[in-house]
């Protein structure tokens, strides 16, 4: 199915991906309505006596947005890789199977109904309400999907994707109802959520989600060996001494954390979790010890580049990055399906 000759040694590929991420980051920091040279970016980042406007653009606008793009890209790609390893199928993407839209429904619910709900207790909406709701909705959807897609220890991928269709439909209906109830200001925020965007990224967002995503990224290498064993089937993984039930619970929670955090700051950005791990498998093979970190890096690169392109192609307006990823990822998904059908 996959040409083995195309496999590359893992360490150089990881280094190359790291280099690509640095280049992408440089590009993202330099481009925009106010183009900057590499030296100006450097000054804006580190010099105390840098020009105020450069400092503002680099430190307060572009840097948080860049870091957020990296984290969100890595979170989505790693969630995809973890779910695909667990379900032993390359089509398990957090967007396709409904985790993202579940989280988004929770987030939009807080945007539209939050003020009314919290007003009853005479409080303003706390900053943590939105990410926490997004996380719990992600956890709930993942658990529901797990129950539907997994019977007697075997993953049923058709059921999984059908469940994804159903959950996406329910979430979209919910979003429709909330759209109907929303006022003008809320509508703008809502649109940003459903199309996915990093335009409102700031340090506050970053502080909110970075710990959770970094936690998942740091914990993920611990699951690599067990996931490799699961590639041979859950029974074999058990024979080899891995606690598969514990692995499942951990992956469900980690995906909910990563996707919930990503969605709560960037809205719905699909297909990263599908595209990044698949490309990595083509070049490195299926060993999760390399697949997971490489997917994280590639996801970060993809999202940084896509976000930079989103800022450029219709400047001074911005193209929603979620739409951008759907335009790239949709055809990619179709190609993947056609390959498997053959």
């Amino acid at each position, binding site marked *: *199915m*996959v040409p*083995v000759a195309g496999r590359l040694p893992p360490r150089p590929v990881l280094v190359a991906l790291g280099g690509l991420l640095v280049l992408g980051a440089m590009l993202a920091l330099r481009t925009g309505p106010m183009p900057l040279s590499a030296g100006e970016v450097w000054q804006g980042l580190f010099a105390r006596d840098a020009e105020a406007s450069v400092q503002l653009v680099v430190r307060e606008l572009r840097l948080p947005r860049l870091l957020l793009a990296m984290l969100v890209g890595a979170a989505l790609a790693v969630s995809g890789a973890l779910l695909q*390893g667990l*379900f*032993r*199928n*390359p089509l398990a993407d957090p967007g396709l199977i409904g985790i993202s839209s579940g989280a988004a429904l929770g987030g939009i619910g807080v945007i539209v109904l939050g003020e009314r709900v919290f007003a009853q207790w005479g409080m303003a909406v706390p900053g943590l309400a939105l990410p926490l709701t997004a996380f719990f909705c992600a956890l709930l959807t993942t658990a529901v999907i797990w129950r539907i897609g997994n019977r007697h220890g075997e993953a049923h991928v058709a059921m999984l994707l059908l469940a994804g269709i159903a959950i996406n439909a329910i979430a979209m209906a919910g979003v429709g109802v909330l759209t109907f109830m929303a006022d003008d200001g809320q509508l703008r925020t809502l649109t940003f959520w459903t199309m996915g965007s990093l335009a409102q990224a700031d340090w506050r967002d970053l502080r909110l989600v970075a710990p959770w995503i970094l936690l998942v990224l740091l914990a993920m290498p611990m699951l690599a*060996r067990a996931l*490799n*064993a*699961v*590639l*041979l*089937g859950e*029974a*074999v993984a*058990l*024979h*080899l*001494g*891995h*606690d598969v039930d514990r692995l499942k619970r951990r992956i469900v929670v980690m995906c909910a954390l990563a996707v919930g955090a990503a969605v709560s700051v960037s809205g719905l950005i699909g297909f990263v979790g599908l595209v990044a791990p698949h490309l990595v*498998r083509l070049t490195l*093979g*299926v*060993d999760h*010890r390399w697949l997971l970190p490489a997917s994280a890096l590639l996801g970060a690169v993809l999202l940084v580049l896509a976000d930079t392109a989103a800022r450029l192609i219709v400047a001074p307006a911005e193209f929603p990055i979620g739409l951008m990823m759907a335009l790239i990822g949709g055809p990619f998904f179709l190609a993947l399906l056609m390959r498997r059908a053959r």
Partner: protein
Amino acid sequence: MTTRLVAPLLEKPLLEAREITLVRNGQQLLRNISLRVRAGERVMLLGPNGAGKSTLLRVLASEWRPQSGEVRLGGDSLATLPLPALARRRAVMPQQVTLGFPMLAEEVVAQGLPGREAGDSSHPSVGTQMAWCDVAHLAGRLYNSLSGGEQQRVQLARVLVQLRAMSGERLLLLDEATSALDPAQQYRLMAQLASLAQQEETALIMACHDLSLAAAYGSRILLLANGECVADGPPETVLTEENLARVYGLDACLDTRGPLPQVCVRGASNPVVLSKPLCAKPLRGQCSLGSDSA
């Protein structure tokens, strides 16, 4: 020093199963099965399709927990033995392994390595066991592109990598490990496995459909029907014309005149045991708590 410590252990069975009963989805799959196996024994599980051979192996592998009864491995109950510790005492080869993603044969085999070495295809044991199973030349091929027999031998190599990393008495559970191999490979591998069991403190339990193969290399045969043990003992006491007719509906007899014993089949009819409720008393060579074979 070591012999003193090991000697009393050798007298105890490595594996002890007591009155195992298993019900799944409302169906009784195993009924009151008791079994004691010592290291060095080669136990062949025989019985018609659906008799409970694979189910029994799953219980012995700690994959499924029985509703009643207990399985002990080296004196420890399977219910309390942690999975990593269990993986250092017993290896299992299931009937079928399908891969989620394309993997190389050597990557599959390297999964058998313990702990942090798992997945390291350059480990010497990977090459050694692949050569033992005659698949060293397939190391760089994709597992899914191999024939059924080749896949089976690659899986056996993986199981042996796990088994040979162990120390002390160990248990090897095989579910139709040679079903897809050609006859020469079957006999060659079974001879190797039998001598491995005798020389390396290994108890071998294998589910099998080939009666002659079981008679030739099993030191003991456990005959199952309808989830019950019908007979247990050395091949010549279990593979009698009467037992073969009752359990399989097979008109056959065990021929021990040649260098290897073999089962000669003259024809087949309906099995007696399957159509009737099981007999209350086991037949000759009954499933006793003590094994009666050396």
